[in-house]
């Protein structure tokens, strides 16, 4: 009995302080913390979700005889009124806002490595500001397109916008343009916007926790790194949303 107890003692398994008994476990093989690893694998699964949406978009778009020309759909710009003709202008601004916001959070992570609490707070603030600005831009763009008549099941962007009238005459539909365009646009940019919104909330929490000195007392700013990973992923997804809806 005593022997059994001794063996159990020797192989006592504590996930936090693994014993150095030559069976491995004393060293992390990936040299990356548990939290960051899990954030990466969550983002991998999220990448599959976004890929599924974008691939569905591609399949539906390929199945149509034509598709609304982005240069004639996305040409509005705030302050230029309904007659504005600045194709891709506003969405380029949105892209830059998101890239700069991402950069601000990278800087916050770097200041975190230096244990510079004030630096983390300043750069997180700019990161949050960029995220809020992006959401504001998106709200304006959705509002603009809804005013032009775009709905999840109705697409006003007919063939006259592309000079492709002949293709549609033989195939008259109740919606001037491919019906799925609205649902795909609102669905995919909306899902991305939801990620931006969640990211802003998480970053605000990170900012408040930093200002309260939570991470400083902990001795490291790894939480800011995890928030940063999520935030850059949002930027990464935007690259492909931009590609699918605005460029192609």
């Amino acid at each position: 009995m005593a022997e059994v107890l001794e063996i159990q003692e020797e192989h006592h398994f504590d996930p936090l302080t693994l014993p150095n008994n030559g069976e491995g476990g004393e060293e992390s093989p990936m040299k990356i913390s548990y939290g960051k690893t899990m954030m990466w694998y969550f983002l991998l699964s999220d990448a599959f979700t976004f890929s599924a949406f974008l691939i569905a978009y591609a399949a539906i778009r390929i199945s149509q005889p034509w598709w609304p020309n982005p240069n004639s759909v996305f040409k509005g710009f705030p302050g230029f009124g309904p007659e504005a003709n600045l194709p891709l202008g506003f969405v380029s601004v949105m892209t830059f806002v998101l890239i700069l916001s991402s950069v601000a959070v990278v800087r916050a992570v770097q200041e975190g490595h230096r244990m510079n609490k004030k630096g983390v707070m300043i750069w997180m603030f700019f990161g949050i500001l960029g995220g809020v600005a992006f959401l504001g831009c998106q709200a304006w763009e959705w509002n603009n397109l809804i005013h032009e008549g775009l709905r999840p099941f109705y697409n006003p962007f007919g063939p006259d916008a592309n000079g492709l009238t002949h293709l549609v005459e033989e195939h008259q539909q109740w919606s001037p343009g491919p019906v799925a365009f609205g649902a795909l646009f609102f669905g995919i940019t909306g899902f991305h916007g939801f990620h931006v919104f969640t990211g802003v909330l998480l970053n605000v929490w990170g900012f408040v926790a930093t200002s309260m000195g939570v991470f400083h007392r902990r001795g490291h700013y790894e939480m800011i790194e995890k928030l940063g990973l999520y935030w850059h992923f949002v930027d990464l997804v935007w690259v492909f949303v931009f590609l699918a809806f605005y460029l192609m």
Partner: protein
Amino acid sequence: MADHLSDEQYKSAVSAVWKATIILGVVTVVEVIAALILGPKLPKVLMNSFYALASFAKAFFIVGEFMHLKYEKRAFMISLGVPLVFLVWAIIAFASEGQSWFLMNHPK
């Protein structure tokens, strides 16, 4: 756990980030200008391949530099990259499926 940086590492990390920012900005500007000027003139296939290539370049910069994956262990990079191979199948399969829907609706 926190790998604190020396002054030198810090400086080079900061300059690497600004460099990546400039590259991302320039690639985006080139994409938009190409879409506005060359888009209506050149064949759609050529333009789309250019946009896709430029976007993947941007993606590599974001993942490598901003998300710091370039500096992680190789095994970790592979564990994230290999599952994405499924997407190659998905893109090919669903693109050809879309093509087939088109041909069903528009018989020659």
